[in-house]
């Protein structure tokens, strides 16, 4: 068992999970971070205190073994946190995040994971948003042999806002994605988009459920899911569900999947681009529409690069 409990000292914080221990670098008066490892499971507690300046955490899982990680995130009133995880999880992973956003806090989560194709990876995130909170949740993955993504959002108080975007580029994988948005309080906003590219006998499923309680007037909730199927053997199954129990809401959902438009591919090849590269550009375009939802320039560049490398 190893235990770390230290104050970290700047707004940029590096948390590394390495071979024999956990390293939390940098001290700050704005963040309390502790890590406890027990029976192969790592428990990480992150508490961000109120600050005018956002704290940025770079999470790096460098250990060459299956990683079982439980993260508790607490953003105190007005706190701002940005988390970036670009880990490859070379032997697979199971990550559970439980985040609690207090009034006026802001959380940005960027997961750009290029997984080892032969591994199994599971990701579960439960997030509770208080009044005037914003959670921007961007997930980019190339998929793995077996992959599960499950996110449950509770918009628990007025004017809470969730912006979620999932991008999956799969290759010979089974990838199950679930996104549940629970509008529990009035005047909350959710805007979710999911895009999947399925190829090489891959199967992608997206279950997107929005529920709006009776008392939730002035709710705005949009959900769109799209799948691009690159070959005959691959599948995309999009299942949007809406449960609306209040008439004073603006809600929309859309789902569409299909093969690439041959007219577009011909247009690209007629300019000298090979069929293979034309398909790559097509995928980049299909996914690229969502990149522009990321208003953080640095993260937008990383997302572009991820898509370019994995398309």
């Amino acid at each position, binding site marked *: 068992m190893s235990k770390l409990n230290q104050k970290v000292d700047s707004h940029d914080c590096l948390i590394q999970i390495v071979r024999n221990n956990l390293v939390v670098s940098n001290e700050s008066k704005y963040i309390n971070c502790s890590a406890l490892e027990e029976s192969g499971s790592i428990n990480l507690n992150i508490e961000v205190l109120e600050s005018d300046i956002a704290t940025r955490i770079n999470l790096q899982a460098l250990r060459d073994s299956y990683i079982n990680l439980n993260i508790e995130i607490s953003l105190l009133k007005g706190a701002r946190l940005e988390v970036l995880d670009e880990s490859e999880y070379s032997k697979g992973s199971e990550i559970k995040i439980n985040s609690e956003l207090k009034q006026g806090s802001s959380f940005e989560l960027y997961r750009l994971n290029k997984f080892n194709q032969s591994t199994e990876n599971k990701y579960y995130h439960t997030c509770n948003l208080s009044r005037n909170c914003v959670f921007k949740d961007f997930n980019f993955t190339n998929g793995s042999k077996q992959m599960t993504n499950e996110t449950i959002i509770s918009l628990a108080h007025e004017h809470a806002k969730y912006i979620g975007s999932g991008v999956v580029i799969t290759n010979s994988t089974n990838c199950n994605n679930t996104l549940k948005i629970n509008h529990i309080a009035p005047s909350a906003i959710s805007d979710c988009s999911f895009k999947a590219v399925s190829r090489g006998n891959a199967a992608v499923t997206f279950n997107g459920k929005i529920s709006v309680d009776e008392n939730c007037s002035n709710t705005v909730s949009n959900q769109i899911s799209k799948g691009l199927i690159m070959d005959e053997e691959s599948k995309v199954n999009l299942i949007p569900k809406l449960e609306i129990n209040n008439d004073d809401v603006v809600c929309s959902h859309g789902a569409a999947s299909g093969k690439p438009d041959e007219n577009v591919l011909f247009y690209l090849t*007629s300019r000298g681009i090979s069929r293979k590269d034309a398909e790559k550009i097509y995928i980049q375009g299909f996914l690229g529409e969502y990149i522009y939802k990321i208003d953080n320039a640095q993260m937008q560049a990383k997302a572009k690069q991820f898509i370019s490398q994995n398309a």
Partner: protein
Amino acid sequence: MLEIKKLSVSVEKNKILDNLDLTIGSGEVHAIMGPNGSGKSTIAHTLAGNPNYNVDSGQALFNGKDLFELDPSERSLEGLFLAFQYPIELPGVSNASYLKQILNVHRKYEGKDPIDAAEFLKILKEKSNRLNIPMEMHSRFVNTGFSGGEKKKNEVLQMDFLNPSLVIMDETDSGLDVDALRQTSEAVNQLRSSDRSFIIITHYLRLLEYIEPDYVHVFQDGKIVESGDKKLAHKIDKEGYAT
């Protein structure tokens, strides 16, 4: 430069081109006119390699190479360019990035290094100015939300970038207002040279007033029924195809 011999083409088992013969020499400008459904766009897409068009018989030799042995990208790299009647939208890909990619594909084929970013920007500005294209357009997605005129100008801009030896313009004048037609035509005229040939497909005389053809051919039922010089276009404009 291009020699089409006894070409027959069908789309979904409907015969569109019927034993077509057409020879285009280096530096020549050929206009193809004809009523709707006469096969004008079919010849354009067949030469460019659109898989929806089936070559039933015949041959097309492009600089001595059998065009139908090449895939669409190889035809482009060999110097054939089709300016689309309905340019395709490509959401998610910026126009600047797209133009740079297609330019670099051709540069690679010619054994050159990818273009330097500053040099690309310089050329982009210069070529865009010639067509009165605002630089802002290049940060938008390819043809997405472009007006009809912007799309057609973007086709001519791509042509300018790729430096082809055979240009097929499929109703480039449709959707262009008077000023845009003039600017586009001027840009095309600047690209005319003794080693670049054009096939200009159009319904109307007005484009040919700007880009003067060496030959005019009238298509009907997948065949050339009449050929002549520019006077033939004037005759069609006055009398129509019915006579």
